[in-house]
């Protein structure tokens, strides 16, 4: 309760409420989203069987660290739970539309880059299946 007859610049209160809004509502959503995105991407990279074990190890470590870091910073009050759920839901819905995640070597950069193959990308799916058959 603040005496409203006092003239305090409204910007200070606005900045405070924006920051609080981000940490209470935006942050849990981001954490939920990044956690699912990370675990699903990890799962798919592992399933492809093309990544070397140190890469898998590093990726798994980073993803679990991000997830735990998020939990430590976000468990403040019960109102954060629905937005965490929304983040998880959004990431799961997005990942359900992804057919595969591959890491082909970039022809110019000569380093592996992440490539997402979406379910609607018939050509990409066909190429991937051919590459997998060729490997077998």
């Amino acid at each position, binding site marked *: *309760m*603040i*005496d409203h*007859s*006092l*003239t*305090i*610049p409204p910007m*200070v*209160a606005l*900045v*405070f409420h924006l920051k*609080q809004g981000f940490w209470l509502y935006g942050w849990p959503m981001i954490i939920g989203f990044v956690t699912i995105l990370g675990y699903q991407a990890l799962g798919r990279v592992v399933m492809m069987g093309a990544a070397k074990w140190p890469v898998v190890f590093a990726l798994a470590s980073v993803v679990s660290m991000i997830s735990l870091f998020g939990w430590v910073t976000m468990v403040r009050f019960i109102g954060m739970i629905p937005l965490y759920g929304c983040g998880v839901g959004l990431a799961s819905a997005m990942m359900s539309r992804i057919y595969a995640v591959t890491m082909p070597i970039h022809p110019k950069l000569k380093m592996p880059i992440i490539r997402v193959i979406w379910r609607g990308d018939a050509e990409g799916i066909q190429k991937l299946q051919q590459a997998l058959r060729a490997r077998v």
Partner: protein
Amino acid sequence: MKLGLFLLLVSLALEAQGPVPRLAPDLKIVEASGKATMLSAFRGRVVLFAFISTQCAHCQRASTVFEQLSHEFRDHLQVAEVAFDQDADTTVFAKRFGLSFPVGIGTSEVAHDFLGIARGERLGTPQVVVIDRSGVIRAQSERLGSPILQTYDYLRELLKALIKLQVTR
């Protein structure tokens, strides 16, 4: 209908706390050393006062903000705190967080009475109170706490407004 009205009145009564602005009740701040100061002795200066729990992380963080503000407005501001948690060691608390203002020891009942909240009601800490030079409470935390009254930027503007207000009067 009547039941709804009754429940509404009960819930409003439970939420009740002293109105703002209002004249601050007097309070004896007794430090661990035995030194006692009346809150009214600070009249003439803007007072940033808080009821805290020495174990509460928010109170610890807020105390360091108060210390910073006490230096920034050293000519116009008096900061004081009263810890009301059981077995509070205010000497260790003040030393640990480098506090130069008085930190007294009190009881939950004293805090409730000062804040105008019914005894036994749960309080969020810190309970921050800002008192102007004439001894009127101009800002007070909500019963379960007000994070805005623990932030440096907002308190700084609030104190500046109060200091300026007194000068122009």
